[in-house]
């Protein structure tokens, strides 16, 4: 039976709507999420369905909004915060890093912060350096925060519902170029567990490990490479914290070659952690070639369209990196 196809933005909205219907303690807060429908149109008609009390449009006050979510979460609500661009989490970092992440542990375990913080992330819209960053490793580096990067409409609905259920703060980073992409998404409320990597394609020559939008880009690359006889596995690290190395190590054992692909700058990026984990474990003995990282350049995201493309991995670059890896260069 063929399934219903909706966009990524619609999948996010559907997950939030269903969670709000199921649980009166779930509510949303963020800038321009009311009549405007959200900066990327994600909240859409939720304001008509649930009203301004639960779809709580806010002044431009990121620190205050996230802090209010932390406080509400402490006493039994389940807030979903939308930060207009992940770059503006910088404004709210005290509440995210010093408060939300630490409360459960630091205060002895009785209190917890069941908050979801969603933010559009990544480059590709010509919005330049303060609206295009990939900051996932900031969050992944802080014990107490869970971090997910859903890579498709199916993934985002399932991961977001798990994030809402989770009794801990979960950061959900949604790549803004994915919002308009579509895919099959079941209507029922299904969950994708946080902390499980996903083998999305199985091959025998090499494994690409990717996050966020790079998952679909690697799948495209794998498709093209298969036409020239190169058989690629792709693992979606959909949960950055907690991290599941299982499928990555399995595929390394099978293929002997690994390529780590992220949009964020290479230096101290998330893929450095995966490379380190590979090196620390038995999988390293299966490697026929050194680990190859394909990452963003270590520069702020530029405005000019050709420059913006040049600084993050694109399809041709991923394909040629895979060919290099197979040739041993």
């Amino acid at each position, binding site marked *: 039976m063929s399934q219903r196809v909706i966009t990524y933005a619609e999948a996010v909205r559907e997950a939030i709507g269903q969670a709000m219907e199921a649980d009166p303690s779930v509510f949303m807060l963020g800038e321009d999420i009311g009549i405007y429908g959200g900066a990327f149109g994600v909240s859409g008609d939720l304001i008509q369905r649930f009203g301004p009390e639960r779809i709580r449009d806010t002044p431009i006050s990121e620190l205050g909004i996230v802090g209010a979510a932390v406080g509400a979460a402490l006493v039994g609500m389940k807030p979903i915060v939308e930060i207009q661009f992940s770059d503006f989490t910088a404004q709210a970092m005290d509440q995210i890093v010093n408060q939300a992440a630490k409360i459960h542990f630091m205060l002895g375990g009785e209190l917890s912060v069941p908050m979801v913080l969603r933010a559009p992330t990544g480059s590709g819209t010509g919005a*330049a350096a303060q609206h295009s960053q990939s900051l996932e490793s900031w969050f992944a580096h802080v014990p107490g925060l869970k971090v997910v990067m859903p890579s498709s409409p199916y993934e985002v609905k399932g991961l977001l519902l798990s994030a809402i259920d989770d009794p801990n703060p979960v950061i959900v980073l949604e790549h803004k170029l994915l919002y308009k992409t579509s895919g099959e998404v079941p209507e029922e409320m299904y969950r994708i567990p946080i902390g499980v990597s996903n083998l999305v394609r199985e091959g025998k020559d090499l494994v690409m490990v990717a996050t966020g939008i790079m998952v679909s880009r690697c799948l495209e690359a794998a498709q093209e490479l298969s036409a020239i006889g190169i058989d690629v596995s792709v693992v979606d690290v959909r949960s950055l914290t907690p991290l599941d190395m299982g499928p990555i190590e399995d595929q390394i054992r099978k293929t002997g070659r690994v390529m780590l692909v992220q949009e964020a700058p290479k230096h101290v990026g998330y893929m450095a952690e995966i490379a380190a984990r590979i090196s620390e474990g038995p999988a390293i003995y299966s490697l026929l070639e050194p680990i190859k990282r394909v990452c963003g350049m270590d520069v702020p995201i530029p405005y000019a369209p050709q420059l913006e493309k040049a600084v993050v991995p694109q399809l041709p670059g991923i394909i040629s990196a895979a060919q290099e890896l197979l040739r041993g260069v």
Partner: protein
Amino acid sequence: MATITPLLGNDAGAISESKEAALAALESLHSIRSFEEAVDGLFARGMMHGTMHLSIGQEAVATGVCAALKESDFITSTHRGHSHCIAKGADLTRMMAELLAKQTGYCRGRGGSMHIADAKTGNLGANGIVAGGIPIATGAALAQKMKGLDNVVVSFFGDGATNEGAFHEALNLAAVWQLPVIFVCENNKYGMSNSTEFSMNIGHIAERGAAYGIPAVTVDGNDIDAVYLAAKEAVDRARQGGGPTLIEAETYRHKGHSKSDKNLYRTKEEIEDWKLRDPIGKFEHLCMEKNLLTKEEVDQVNAKVRETIREAIRSASEAPDSSPDELISSVFRVA
């Protein structure tokens, strides 16, 4: 190079009291309007990329404030910053080149509409972060004081920005350190889709000055004389060591927030009503009523400005595209 001669350092009373000042102010006002209309057009035709925020309807604020500044004074600006840039004297060709992602642009095509800075005219930069420039202006003012200079700094920002912590912390610092900074809030009634009634529990943003013990005024931001006179008083006070001022200039943006705005949060009637209070039309009318300028003189300014903007687009378009070769080497300044 396509430049205009903006009205800076006016000292002759209200702008509408001097023919010379009025002509220069009109040139700034029209340059901003024409530049923004050109940008809107280029965007609509797909010739410009990214996003942009237009100042159409708000021209009198930047023009009136800069009329009270010297060339060596500084400004910080916002995402809606083309007007500030032009009023402080920027080169329109380099601005246009930046928006067209050219190597000759103010930021070599790396910043785009939201990030134009111009060291030569004291523009410390537009900003993609709401309220991001307000503490920076405060720091620049601190430096003037520490160096014993008599320059002042103006920070432009919107009504929405005053709900950020950065605004409040910066005002407090400027107040306790008595810094030569003028906080200019362009209250255009909305931060994106949220009206000031929705986002704050006070009638006037100027009321926020009291919390920090600094002088604060509300002026009609569509009346360039009112803006100028308030700015002049604040600038004179700051230059003489009298500390910061908060100016709230009430105005309105005729266009949507940015390229992707359906205007669902306000009525057509409201927009039309504010268009009747257009700052440029109002000023032209006043100058002609006072027999300061003739219709021909007004039309001449308009025609001259339009040709300047056309020239800016022409030469910017011919410039080479922004170069990818120097990306890595541009991240740090080499000592």
